[in-house]
Each structure stands twice: as structure tokens, then as C-alpha cells.
């Protein structure tokens, strides 16, 4: 996209808020809303036979509808008289605002005893009805069918991925009770969220509540939303990110594509209408790009070989939540950039308030997103000469300052494990595919840049340089900046646990929507030839596309099907295990849903007694919790060896804070445990010797509790036969 002089001339051009642009926004809203409905239904179905209160699911769904639909309805109404939507009235910023408002509503729910969850949900549902009705009225029947089909596909895929791993599952509590066959990451996040909820301190709460630097924004958000939904944090971790944030993300992605497309319409009024006015819902190439960037065109095993991890988006809720904000910010930036006026007060508001706020938010949600957003911002300011303007200079300095402070607060030193060239590629890409790593990993960015360069007709490097200087490829530059800045950390530094992907993967979510925005234009150009009628006029390239579409379509279905199969196997497997514990032969997969049998089986699950005792503690009033710590003696092997894999001994203590909402006292793993330095564990002193009998006395416990600022200790004590008691010691 052009900047500088070209931009100012195009600002008032029509198209940015025309019918197609409005329809694109509506489509993004409806897609996200219906996806949320579908996922909520799947969640509910997957819990049939177990305790399955409708309220939590309904409120979470309502929250999603609120965040997705209210901004759409409001923005359309507020901008109804504007050719170019005002950025402060744009759907993107209203979306961000709704996320913040819903979190605020959650934050006041417990202190004020006013839970706005249901009213918000009703508001969301009402706005959804309005938006849906309007969308149906302005859409063509074929588009409705296409979107409906895509929704089925995406619902299946998202549900399969999100609930087909051990990270999240609608039966998380039940799975935890059955030999803790879950991943420890959710326990870590839930511990953080519970500590913030009960003690107001971001901490894993393994031995008191020392501050744990981490991008704990999503944990905080989830704990607020959990309050609105009226469930514990651990339950919400399997429900909220999938039913609420995943649809918001996909809606934001479509919205960003729509805003970019609207900007192009404004930028290139001279383009053929057929190539540029087509809304996204009728643009099959855009949908193809959307599916390709998310589900993938090639088998997921091959994507994994190139370290393109489609699952991570839905597994890491901090990344997902951060991306929601990031992509909405990108959409907002497009609207602001193409709608701004020089020396306007709006620029000051945007640069001095919105940008710092968004950067800080991103930093607390996912530090990688903040850094990449900052890089894109600074590149924009530097490249366009805006640094000479006082507001932008001040805004840039402010952005740098708040980013630096946020980085200090949230970055985990232990994650940086030193300079190791090509570390991410060497450890996470299949060695045999290394030569193709850059091409595959940065595919969407390279595709966008290559096609834009081609579109601008730049035969030589001189022409390319001239185009860059003229700002004709500024959009591609931004993509390149995000791609390069995101790529470098993982190839330079050893970032623990493959987290470098949260840098290098971001470019995909910038480039893919941009590809969606311009895909129709490129395809239209390719097909712009003299045509004859009839079968003979079918182009061979069309035949080739159709032929290629067959395996690609099959693969998309296969990728989605594999995910669904994983979730189904996990759900059915657990049900069968409970039937087995209950001594009842399991019926077919679809029939293992007898509440009595499942309840009986759950109660006989190996860790049920301990987990239910811990879970009961979460119901204690937060005022009481605030002065209480939980103590689990080292002798309780059921607790300390809850994970069957010895190498996971570091994570066993997290079960306590995650399930009870209480921080532990003296909760470090045994001295024999090879404790990890990750997951904020360096905030605690390592256990150097075995716990003695003296350590277990009430006096000793109270002394330790008082030292950490607490006055009450609850002890988790085995009562035999798999049962537990939780006597409290008042210090």
C-alpha cells in the first residue's frame, strides 16, 4: 500500500465504508458468532453424562457474542453517515473495548456481588440476532451456504484441536482425577490466575505468593471471565479460550482482511470493480487463503516438519488471546492510517493513548506480540518520515518506554537460554526439511511479498528500490519487518520450549489476511483474457486448479478430521475408563453417557478423592483465602507423584494452587526432583533436604506461613481409602 503523498490523495476516495466493506465486516462478525455457537454446542455435547451446567456455557457464549457482535452493530450504526469509518468508531477498537469492558465486569463481580455475566450474554445474543438478520438479508444464498459449510469445518477443526490434546478438554477435571492424564501448562496458568484472583499477585503460588514475571494478562482475563461465567478458573481454561477467544480471533482475522480490502478499494479506485468490489464472503480465493493459513493445505505432519504449528494457536491461550488483540490492533491501524488527517487531534489520541495502551496490553498477553507490534510501529514512523512530527516523535518515545517497562515486568529471564544459532530450526524442524524451512515457515509472508512485487511490475532491483522509496510496497515492508523480526529470535537465541514460534508465527497472521484482501484482484488479473464460450473456453489453469483442489480439499478435511478424531478418542476413552471403574461394560462410543455410571466411575478414579478435596477448597471466600496457604506433606505420594512421568515432578505442586485456588506452603518438589528452571520456579528456593517431622508441626507451619504474611494453613491429609481431609490451622 502506498504511503505519504499517495495516501493523502486517497483518503477521501470512496469504498472504505461502501456496501462491500460493510458486508465484509458483517461476515467477520457472523462467522465468529456462529463459530462460537457451534463450539459451545460441542462443549456441551462432550460433557453430556457429567455435571453439565448450562449457565457457564451460555454466559461464555454470550460473552463471545458481546465481544464480536456489539462492536459490529455499534460501529455500523455510528459510521452510517461516513464514507470512511472513523477509527475511534471502528469495529476493531470497539472490539478491543468490549474485551476490556467484559474483563472489567468480571473484575467487579466478586467485590460488588453484582455479576453482569447474564446481562452481558443477553446483550450479546440480542446484538447477534440483529447482525445475523441483517447479514442474511444482504447476502446471496450461495454465500450463506459457503459460509455455513466453512463454519461446520471450522467448528470441527477448532473443537478437535483445542479439545483433542491434553492441554484443554471439556472433561479436564475428570481427566485430572484419572491419573492426572493432562498437560501441566493449564495447571501453571490456572495457578497464576488463581493467585491473582485470591491474593491479587501474579504468582504460581508454590511457596507463598512471590511475584512471578510472566505475560500473565491472559490468566488475569480468564480469571475475570471465569467469575462472570460463575465457574472455577480451571474449568474456564478449557471452556473460555475455545468458545470465547478462538471465535473472536477468527472474526478479528476476517475483520482485518476486510479492513485491508476496504483500504485497497480506497487506494485503487481505478481497479476493475469486478476485481476489487467483491466482498470476502463471495471471494473463494480469500476463503482458500483463510483455510490454508489456519487448517493448512498440506498434511499437518508436513507442517510440523517445517515447524508450522497450527495447533499452537488453539493450545496456547496466551498466544490466542494476545493474537486477538494483535489482529484487532492491526485492523484498527489500517482504519486509522487510511482515515487519519494530518495534524489532527485524533493522531495524538491514537499515538499517545491508544498505542501505548495496546502495547502494554500485548506485552502482558504475549511479550512476543508487543515486541513485533513495536517493531512494525517504529518502522512505520521511521519510513514515512513521521518522526519529524512532534506527536509521532513523542508517541514513539512513549511506545518505547512503556514497552521497555512492560518487558521488564513480564519477561522471564530463564526463557532466554543463550545465543544458539539456528536453535529453533535445529530443534523443532525436521532436519531433512531444513533447506525448505524459511520457505515453509514464512510461506505466507513470502507469498504476499512476492505477489505484491509482481503486481507492481518491478522487473529489476532498481525498480524495486524505487518502488520501496516511493512507498508503493509499504504493506509488504510491514509484513517483511514482522517476518524478519519474528524470525530472528528463534534462530539466534535458545528460547525454552519452542516458544520462539510465538515470534516467528506472528507474520502468518499479518500476511494471510492481507493475502485474503488482495487475492481476488490477482486472480482476476490472471483470468483477464479473451474468452470463448462453452467447455472449450475453460482455461487449463482452471483445470489445474480444480485438479489441485481435490487433494488440497481432501487434506483440509483430513487435517480437520484428524483433529476431531483426537478429541473424540480422548473423550470416549475417558468415558470408557469410568465405565470400567464403575464395573459396567462400556457401550458404543456414542452411548457411554449414563450419568450414574459415569459419576460412580469418576468417584472411583485414582485421584478423585484428592482432587475433589482440593477443588472443594476453591469455594472458600476469597477474604479467607487471602490469608490462607495450603500445605501438602511430602509424604503424600499421591499428590507429589500425581504425574506418572518422573520427569514431570516439577509440575506436581501446581496441582494444588490450580485446583484449590490456594497458594502452597513449603510446596517445592522433593529434593530428588530435577527441578526445571522454567514456569517461574526460580522464584522459589529449591528444596535441598527431605522434609522432617519437625517441619510438619503446626508451630513450624505457622511460623513459615507468618513469615510469608499469612495467618492460616490448611493441611491436605489422606484419610485412607483414597479420601482426604483438609483441617485448617489458625495461626
Amino acid at each position, binding site marked *: 500500500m502506498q504511503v505519504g503523498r499517495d495516501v493523502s490523495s486517497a483518503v477521501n476516495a470512496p469504498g472504505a465504508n461502501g456496501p462491500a466493506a460493510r458486508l465484509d465486516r458483517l461476515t467477520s462478525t457472523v462467522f465468529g458468532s456462529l463459530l462460537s455457537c457451534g463450539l459451545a454446542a460441542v462443549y456441551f455435547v462432550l460433557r453430556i453424562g457429567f455435571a453439565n451446567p448450562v449457565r457457564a456455557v451460555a454466559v461464555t457464549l454470550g460473552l463471545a457474542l458481546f465481544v464480536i457482535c456489539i462492536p459490529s452493530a455499534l460501529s455500523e450504526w455510528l459510521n452510517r453517515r461516513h464514507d470512511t469509518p472513523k477509527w475511534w468508531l471502528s469495529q476493531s477498537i470497539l472490539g478491543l473495548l468490549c474485551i476490556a469492558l467484559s474483563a472489567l465486569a468480571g473484575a467487579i463481580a466478586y467485590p460488588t456481588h453484582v455479576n453482569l455475566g447474564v446481562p452481558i450474554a443477553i446483550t450479546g445474543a440480542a446484538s447477534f440476532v440483529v447482525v445475523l438478520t441483517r447479514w442474511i438479508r444482504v447476502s446471496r444464498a450461495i454465500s450463506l451456504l459457503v459460509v455455513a459449510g466453512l463454519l461446520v469445518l471450522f467448528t470441527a477443526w477448532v473443537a478437535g484441536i483445542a479439545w483433542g490434546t491434553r492441554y484443554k478438554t471439556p472433561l479436564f477435571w475428570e481427566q485430572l482425577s484419572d491419573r492426572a492424564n493432562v498437560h501441566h501448562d493449564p495447571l501453571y496458568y490456572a495457578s497464576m490466575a488463581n493467585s491473582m484472583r485470591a491474593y491479587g499477585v501474579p504468582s504460581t503460588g508454590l511457596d507463598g505468593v512471590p511475584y512471578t514475571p510472566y505475560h500473565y494478562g491472559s490468566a488475569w482475563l480468564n480469571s475475570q471471565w471465569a467469575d462472570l461465567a460463575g465457574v472455577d478458573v480451571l474449568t474456564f481454561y478449557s471452556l473460555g479460550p475455545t468458545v470465547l477467544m478462538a471465535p473472536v480471533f477468527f472474526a478479528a482475522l476476517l475483520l482485518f482482511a476486510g479492513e485491508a480490502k476496504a483500504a485497497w478499494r480506497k487506494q485503487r479506485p481505478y481497479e476493475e470493480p469486478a476485481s476489487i468490489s467483491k466482498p470476502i464472503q463471495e471471494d473463494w480465493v480469500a476463503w482458500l487463503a483463510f483455510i490454508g493459513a489456519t487448517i493448512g493445505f498440506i498434511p499437518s505432519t508436513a507442517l510440523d516438519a517445517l515447524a508450522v504449528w497450527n495447533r499452537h494457536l488453539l493450545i496456547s491461550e496466551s498466544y490466542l488471546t494476545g493474537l486477538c488483540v494483535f489482529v484487532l490492533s492491526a485492523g484498527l491501524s489500517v482504519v486509522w492510517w487510511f482515515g487519519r488527517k494530518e495534524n489532527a487531534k485524533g493522531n495524538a489520541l491514537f499515538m499517545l493513548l491508544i498505542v501505548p495502551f495496546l502495547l502494554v496490553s500485548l506485552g502482558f498477553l504475549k511479550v512476543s506480540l508487543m515486541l513485533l507490534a513495536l517493531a512494525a510501529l517504529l518502522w512505520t514512523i521511521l519510513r514515512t518520515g513521521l518522526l519529524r512530527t512532534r506527536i509521532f516523535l513523542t508517541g514513539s518515545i512513549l511506545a518505547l518506554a512503556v514497552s521497555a517497562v512492560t518487558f521488564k515486568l513480564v519477561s522471564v529471564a530463564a526463557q532466554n537460554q543463550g545465543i544458539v544459532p539456528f536453535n529453533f530450526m535445529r530443534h523443532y524442524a525436521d532436519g531433512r526439511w531444513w533447506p525448505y524451512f*524459511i520457505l515453509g515457515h514464512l510461506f505466507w509472508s513470502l507469498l504476499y511479498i512476492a505477489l505484491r512485487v509482481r503486481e507492481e511490475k518491478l522487473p529489476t532491483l532498481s525498480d524495486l528500490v524505487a518502488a520501496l522509496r516511493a512507498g508503493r510496497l509499504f504493506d509488504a515492508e510491514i509484513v517483511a519487518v514482522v517476518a524478519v523480526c519474528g524470525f530472528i529470535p528463534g534462530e539466534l537465541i535458545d528460547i525454552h520450549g519452542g516458544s520462539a514460534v510465538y515470534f516467528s508465527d506472528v507474520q502468518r497472521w499479518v500476511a494471510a489476511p492481507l493475502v485474503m484482501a488482495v487475492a481476488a484482484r490477482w486472480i482476476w488479473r490472471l483470468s483477464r483474457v479473451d474468452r470463448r464460450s462453452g467447455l472449450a473456453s475453460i482455461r487449463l489453469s482452471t483445470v489445474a486448479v480444480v485438479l489441485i483442489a481435490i487433494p*488440497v480439499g481432501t487434506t483440509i478435511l483430513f487435517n480437520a478430521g484428524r483433529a476431531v478424531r483426537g478429541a473424540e478418542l480422548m473423550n470416549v476413552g475417558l468415558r470408557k475408563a469410568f465405565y470400567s471403574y464403575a464395573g459396567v461394560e462400556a457401550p458404543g462410543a456414542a452411548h457411554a453417557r449414563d450419568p450414574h455410571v459415569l459419576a460412580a466411575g469418576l468417584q472411583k478414579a485414582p485421584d478423585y478423592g484428592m482432587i475433589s478435596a482440593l477443588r472443594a477448597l476453591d469455594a472458600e471466600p476469597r477474604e479467607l483465602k487471602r490469608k490462607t496457604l495450603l500445605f501438602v506433606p511430602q509424604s503424600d505420594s499421591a499428590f507429589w507423584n500425581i504425574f506418572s512421568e518422573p520427569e514431570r515432578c516439577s509440575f506436581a505442586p501446581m496441582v494444588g494452587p490450580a485446583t484449590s485456588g490456594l497458594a502452597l506452603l513449603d510446596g517445592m518438589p522433593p529434593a530428588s526432583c530435577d527441578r526445571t528452571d522454567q514456569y517461574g520456579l526460580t522464584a522459589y528456593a529449591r528444596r535441598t533436604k527431605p522434609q522432617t517431622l519437625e517441619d510438619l508441626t503446626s508451630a513450624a507451619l505457622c511460623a513459615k506461613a507468618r513469615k510469608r504474611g499469612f495467618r492460616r494453613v490448611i493441611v491436605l491429609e489422606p484419610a485412607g481409602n483414597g479420601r482426604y481431609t483438609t483441617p485448617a490451622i489458625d495461626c
Partner: protein
Amino acid sequence: MVDAGVRRFAGSPDTRTLVVLAGIVSATIAAVYWVLRIGFDNPTGPILETLELALFLLAFPVVLRTALIRAIGDREPRWWASHPFLWLVTIGSTGLIGRAVPIIGNSAVILELVGLVFFTLILVTWLYEQGLWRSLSYIAGSIAFGVWTAGVVWGRIYKNPLYFETFIATGKVHHDTLNLAATGNMLRTYHVATTGIDGLNYVPYHWGSAWLFAQWANLIGIDVLKFYQLSFPVIVIPFFFGCIVALAIFLRNRRRDEGSDPTRLSGTFWAVFIAIAVGIAPIAGLDAMGVWTSNIMISESYTIAVPAALLFAAVVVNWADGLSVKTNSLAESKLGWIDMLFLIALIPAGIVLLGYLKISLMALAFAAIVYLGWRLRLYRRIPFLAAILITTVVFYLTYKQVSLPAHREGFVPLDYLSDFVPPPWWPFFLFVHLAWTWIYTIYRLRRENIHDLGELGTAVKERRIIDVELIVTLALIGVVPGLIIHIDGGSAFYFSDVQRWLAGAMLLSWIAFAGTRLWPARSPDAHPGIGGWPTRRLLTALLFIAAVGSIISNAVRWPLIMLRQNVAIREQLYQIAGYPVSTGRIRNFVNLRDPAILATGLRKSPNYAMATALALLQATPSPVRRREALFVPQSDNHYWTSLARPAECSFQSFVGPALAGIAMVDGMPAVGCKLSKYYGIGSFSPRVASQQPAETSDAALCVRAKAIGATRVISMRFPGDSVVRRDISCKSGAT
């Protein structure tokens, strides 16, 4: 300066390049063989003789063609003077000469001398015209390619310069090679196509390559098992790749505009050639699509049948070109008696010979003939129709002779996919497995400016893209067997992979000199300096880096495996000799070449006495061996368990015929052994009861020996480290 008279006999520049590069590949493979055997019995004689025979096969047809062209002129295409035909004739002739060795003695030295002189002649001419840097880069490239091919052929357990030693030390060798060596030996000794595991029952199999190799083994004077390890790679692999290039050159020369096109093969040509051979996708990705880069060198029948088929195709095209010169239409051409002979004798004979080399090649060649007969409407003329009918009949008869009944296992949908392609990749199978066919198709359609179905239909009607039709047809036909029937051991690959080499050669023929460039050229009026570089170079560079990286990664993989295996067997022998080393590191090779220690290790190895005693039997002159039979009693546990890989009991019987070159009597595996259906084992009666003492009596053995025309039975046992041999004369009782 090279004398013009010398150059007159050294072929055209492109064929000279072909001969020189193939010769260097051959020499490189021979050198690698020698290096890998350092420290073992390693006479240079057989290696040099093999190399000289390879050079003869490469150089002689070129010199012969040049001489013929000088004699008769080259205004019209003459198939019998074409390079492909002369090459085929040379191959066949050496086979016949080898067959005559037992009768007239070994005159191979003449061939070898001729090969050396002709190759030197071509090499000198080539060096003179290439210039220093071009020559050096070609030579370096050929050496690298030779090392890669050596790695592929010796990086698996099928073939190995230390195959015999590996069998002695560990018994962990692949049975395929024993089966083929047994067949070759039986053809060499008894002139019967059989594995000789229990008499000389005919085994229907495409044993043409085994026959040819047995004759070449006669020429070189080595045993068949050694021929498979040494001579096959040195002679046949350069022949394989040489023929791809030869076909490309031949096809290109049909279209070449004399005087306007350069005669040097372009860099793009070689880049695409390497991409076809080595693969631009990682081996893991190729394997996932059932595109096996190593199999072309594992299956020696395939390695020789593909180039033979390509040369045969070139001969047929050359013949058709000669006919069409005046009428521009094969269907309306005037047929002379030589043409009639070609039609009704040579084409069917070619099909038969292909059937004996590799049944899949015969089937595809037959399909090509039928398709072209239909598309060019040749069936309307009686000579062509007669040729098609005769070809059909001989195809059927040959099929009956060479097709193993056990391989006809009925309808099994998607069998090849199920067995060898991971399910997520199934949707892409046809695209990637037949990639070179599609690339060729797209290239040709673009070249013909065909953009839509209408233009495609017109081009088909006008027969402008008959080459595309043919390759697509063959590709689809080739892929069908693996998708509908079960062919043991992934052999469906030998149907579906053929298109890669044909399409590859056809593609190379178009880009050979046509100015096709992978690296975008700068425009003449572009800005000077780096600013004038085409923007596309950036993207091309990215793709190049990936592709070159992948090619290098693929190329080093097999040689490294080959070296590791070599080091592993050396370490094993050192261990047995009492010098334990176990590093597994390639660089340890230099420390593991003490002849005394390796010899001690071999002597102390479990199969040493048995293997050497059996191999010694090959020293007996062939006419004498023909009157002998080998017997190893079932009680000899050592022999019947000498192969150490799991579930090998079926293949133990091959050891005797493969090592000794003598057929066994009563040599079927024990009763409890679950016999393989394949490898021709079904041609022999399975053992239904344990061997009884009466069956091992001299009289009983002589009855069996006489049934195959033998007059002496060599009964051998291998208790412990010793060998107990007893010769039973079937003329006068026990001796």
C-alpha cells in the same frame, strides 16, 4: 591440438560429453569400491577389467556411429546407424561374446583394450574443446555424482563391496542378492533359468539381466556374486544415467536447427538432470510419496531395463523419422523390406527382450505401441496391424515365461498406497509420484501456447502433442498396477517410476540447448550494475538455496550410510579378531584397515569356513561344474541358519547356488520353515517331512542328481569351523 582426423571418429560434442562424464562416473564408482575394500583381499585386476568393459560399452557405439556416418552420410535418419541402436547392439554383443567364453576362451582383453583406447580418444578430444574450467567443473561434478551413486548402491544391504565378508562375519545380508546370484550362476553353469535350490526347475522370472550379467562375469573372469557387488555398479549405473542423457540428446537433435543452436549442454540441463536423479525434495518427502531414489540402483534388472527401453524407444522413433521424411506421416509412409523386418521382427523382439529384462518395461512398451498404433491410425495399414498383432502374441507368450505365478495375487485396491505411502499424503500421491510427467506436460503445453480446453483439443486432434499424450498415458497406466493389485515388495514402483525417466529425458531434450534458463537473465537494456538484476532473481535465489540444500542433503545421505556400514563391518571383524573398537565414526575408517587383523577377524567369523569352501567350488571349470550337484544335509545346522536376519529360513537354500555356482539337490528348507511365495520358491516342491537317513544315502542323492544331468554329488557339512566334504560319483557309487 587434437588432430581433426582424430576428432572425426570421436562423435559429436554432446555425445563426447556424455561418454566422458559416464566414464568418469564409472571410474569413480570403481575407485570407491577399491577404497572400501582396503585392508581386505583387493586385487585391482577385476576392478580395472570391469572399468575397461564399462568404457568399451560407452565409447565403442560412439566411435562406431561416427565411422558409419562418415561412410554413409547422415542426411537421412537411419535407425541402424543411430547411437541408441549401436549402443544396444554393443550391449547385446558383449553378452554373446561372454556366452562364448567357455567355448572359445576369454578374449575380453581385446574389448577392454579397445574400450580404453576409444575412451581415451574421446576424452582427449573432449578436453581439448571444453577448456580448463569447464572440464574441471564437469569432472568434479561427475566424481561427486559417482560418489553419490556409489553411496546409493552400497548404502543399502542389497549390495556391498564387503558383501561376502559381511555374510562371513554376521550373516546379515539381503537375500535378494543371493537369489539373483543363484539365478545368474545357474544360467552360467547349466544354462537354465532357475535358482537351483532343488534341481533345475525353470523359474518364470525376468532373468534377462541375470543372464547378461553372467556373461559379463565370464568376460571379466569373476564370480556372479562379486559381479553384482562390483561390476553391476561400475558398468550399469553409468549406462543408466548415460542413456537418460543420450535419449535427451537424441530427441533434441531431431528438432535441432543446425547452425543456430549451440552444441553444448546447458547448465540448466544438468541442474534439471540432477534434480530428477537426486531429488529436490528431501528423501523423507520423496519416500512419503513412494518416490524411491535408491530403488533404481537396488534393482539391477530395473537399472538395465530402463535404459534399454529408452534406447529401444529412441531406435523406434529414429526408424519412424526415417519413414516420415518424405510423407511427413508415418501412416502414409512407404515401407521397404527393411522397414517390414523392423516392424514385424525387431519391434516384437524388442518387446520380448524387455520382458526378459523387466516385465514392467515390457508392459509399458507394449502399451505405448498400442496407444501410438491407435492414435496415429497405423492399424489401418496391414504391416502395422500385423506388427501390433505379432507384438500382442509375443507379449502374451513372454509374459507367461517371465511372470512368476506367485506375483499374481489378485485385486487389492490401493495396495501400493496402503503399504508405502502414509495416509495423509494419499491425496497428493498422483501429483508428486508422477511429478516429472506433469512438469513435462505443463512445459510442453506452455511451449505450444495452449491455454484452454479448446486449444488443447485442437492440439490433440492435430497430433501436435502426441509426446505429451504418450507420457501421460504411460504414467497413468504405470500407476494402475500398484493401485489395483498387490505386487510383492513394492515392485509396483517399477511400473509407476518409469515415467520419471522417460519424462525426464523428454524434458531434458527440450531444455538441452533451447536457451531455457532457471536463473533469470538480465534484460539487455537494464540498468548497469546490481540494480539491473531481475527482481525475480531474489525469489529464484531463495528457491535455489532450498533446492540446492536439499539436493546436497540427499546426496550426502547415502555415501555417509555406505561409509558407516563399511566401518561397522570392519569394527565387527576387529572385535572378532580381539581388537575391540566400537565408535561407529566414519573417520575411524583409516584406523581399521590392517590386513592381518581383518583377515584374522574373517577367519574367526562364524561363516568363514563354510563360505570359502562353497566359493572354492566355483574354481572348478564350468563344463565340470555342469555335471555336479551340491548337497547339504538338513542336519547341518550351521548352513541352514547362516543368514542372520529374522525369518530368513526360506532363503537359506540360495546360499549354496549363489556361492558355489552349483545347483543343490534336496535343498529345500526344513519342514517347519514358512516358505516365501516369491523368489521362485514355488517352482520347487516344498519339503513335507523331515529329511530321513534314506534320503541322504548316496543312491538317493544320485537319483536326484541324475534328474538334472549331474554325475557327481558334492555333499558338504560344516560342523563348527570345519568343512566335511564328500564327493559321490553317480557313475560308480560312493567314493
